[in-house]
């Protein structure tokens, strides 16, 4: 065996998990915003939570190739779990977060069996259906969820008994940032592990993945469950930092928006969700304060232009930069239904 080849191979694999400069920049900037952008903590909190939510979708769409139009089911379940837990049991945020994660993971595990088989269009609609049914359940269980009026009276105790949630959203942002970062670290380990690699083989070619001994169904169930837990925690963060839960946590537009944001930001490199959330929410905030009534037109126009001149080119600055620094080719657009 040629030792040179061995060295190259080892280096190539090691490069995959080494931190790249832009990654440091991203998280340091997010941290710096705690002090530098005090008047934007509220929207930053929302962006961070949405970014985490979108990252959880990236785990299944970008890595395992499962397109979902009902990911808000898990987000919503997490939000309601955290909210109801705070009202009925205790306002401790970390316990609520953990419980929400477990609850959503449970739902993810159960519903994962529905998405195993089937073409992508069917998957889109099945996930959508699950979310719609769940939303309707939340609407009907008025005694538990507050129904269409929303869940009121959520009060969250200070984090670790010390950090109280303030009206500027500072604690909220720091809290969401830390939780998102920790979950990101785990996700990052996960996607470079043999498990993560095997997911990509399933995404690219499930037939062959099974022919090299990968238990395809189990892997999909596992990642779907993990992604559900992540989404649930994101939902819990929203419930805890806004101290309110309404039916829109689970609504179709939340599933659709998160898919949009992820696609805008790019799939398959974990940061796409955060980048997409930043772009989408940021634009929405700026344009809608400029024209509250017709901002959707401009957002729509931007989407259209984005696609026409090529999302890849638009993302060049961010995505390819990041990717190159991570030592791999630019993230490719994924297909939902498969090309012909």
């Amino acid at each position, binding site marked *: 065996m040629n030792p040179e080849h061995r060295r190259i191979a080892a280096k190539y694999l090691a490069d995959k998990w080494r931190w790249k400069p832009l990654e440091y920049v991203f998280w340091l900037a997010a941290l710096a915003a705690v002090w530098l952008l005090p008047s934007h903590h509220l929207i930053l909190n929302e962006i961070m939570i949405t970014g985490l939510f979108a990252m959880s979708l990236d785990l299944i769409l970008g890595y395992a190739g499962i397109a979902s139009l009902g990911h808000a089911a898990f987000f919503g379940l997490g939000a309601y779990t955290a909210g109801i837990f705070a009202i009925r049991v205790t306002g401790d945020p970390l316990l609520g977060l953990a419980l929400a994660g477990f609850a959503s993971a449970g739902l993810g595990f159960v519903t994962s069996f529905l998405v195993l088989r089937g073409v992508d269009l069917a998957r889109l609609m099945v996930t959508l259906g699950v979310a719609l049914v769940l939303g309707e359940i939340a609407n009907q269980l008025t005694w538990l969820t507050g129904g269409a009026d929303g869940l009121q009276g959520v009060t969250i105790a200070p984090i670790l008994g010390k950090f109280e949630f303030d009206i500027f959203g500072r604690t909220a942002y720091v809290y969401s940032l830390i939780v998102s970062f920790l979950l990101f670290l785990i996700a990052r380990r996960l996607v470079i592990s043999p498990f993560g690699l095997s997911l990509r083989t399933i995404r690219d070619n499930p037939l062959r993945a099974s022919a090299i001994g990968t238990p395809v169904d189990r892997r999909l169930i596992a990642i779907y469950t993990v992604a559900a837990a992540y989404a649930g925690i994101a939902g819990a963060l929203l419930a805890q930092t806004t101290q309110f839960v309404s039916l829109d946590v689970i609504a179709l537009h939340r599933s659709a928006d998160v898919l949009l944001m992820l696609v805008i930001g790019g799939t398959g490199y974990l940061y796409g969700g955060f980048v997409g959330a930043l772009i989408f929410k940021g634009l929405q905030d700026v344009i809608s304060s400029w024209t509250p009534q017709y901002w959707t*037109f401009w957002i729509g126009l931007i989407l259209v232009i*984005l696609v026409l001149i090529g999302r890849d080119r638009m993302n060049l600055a961010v995505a390819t930069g990041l990717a190159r620094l991570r030592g791999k080719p630019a993230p490719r657009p994924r297909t939902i239904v498969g*090309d012909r």
Partner: protein
Amino acid sequence: MLTILFDGIAYGMVLFVLACGLSITLGLMNFVNLAHGVFAMAGGYASAILMNRAGVPFLATLPFAFLIPAAFGLVLERTLYQRLYNRPHLDQVLFTIGLIFMSIAAVDYIMGSQPQLITLPEWLRGRVDVFGVQIGLYRSFIIVVCSVLVVALQMILTKTRFGAQLRAAVDDQRVARGLGINTSLVFAATFAFGSGLAGLGGALGAEILGLDPTFPFKFLIYFMIVVTVGGTSSLTGPFFASLLLGVADVAGKYYVPSLGAFVIYTVMIVVLVFRPHGLFVRAR
């Protein structure tokens, strides 16, 4: 009981006319055109404007409800859509959602956000009693129009030269081109036709479903359900799927009102879990 069945069928028919254009673009041209509802809305508005502002009678507006969205679709296809045929579906989703956003804001700006109303001619209002079953006249009208449409569509697709060309173009663009078929022209015509059908559906359905700027989003789910449950390989699939969903929805809401909203979604999930390619697609 029979009245419920009848209402369900009529409702399903409206769903079908609205969705069949989508099943053409998605199923035959493999383009995920979520903005399909925009064309339906265009048809509805064309009909409403002609009727309310120009005083054209309802029936006479229907051709325009087909032609205007068709023209609109043709222009969009030539200028924008055709660039995206070979792009990944997520790009198509992004693009067409962008179109929905734009159209909603634009219609709101031009027409206002209030619902548009269609006034039916006298002879289509009310209902008659047929062998003890109460039959709504307008719903019967819809059933008749839609049935004719289904048959005509199936004929066009299977019996005409254009249908053959389209199927050839869909199966293999290169081969079709080699056979001297102008695939780009065929696609453009098909897209325009699908848009026109959507527009017609919008005009016919406005009476039952309502019509306002949020129309393209409000009914998107229903279109998608019909097309996925029915399968995208034929028109008969979505047709029966529409009927099934229409009847299931109406009957579900009548007999178990408290669970009404669940019925249509549950039907969809069950169907797709067991038949991922749709209910009416022959197993491979």
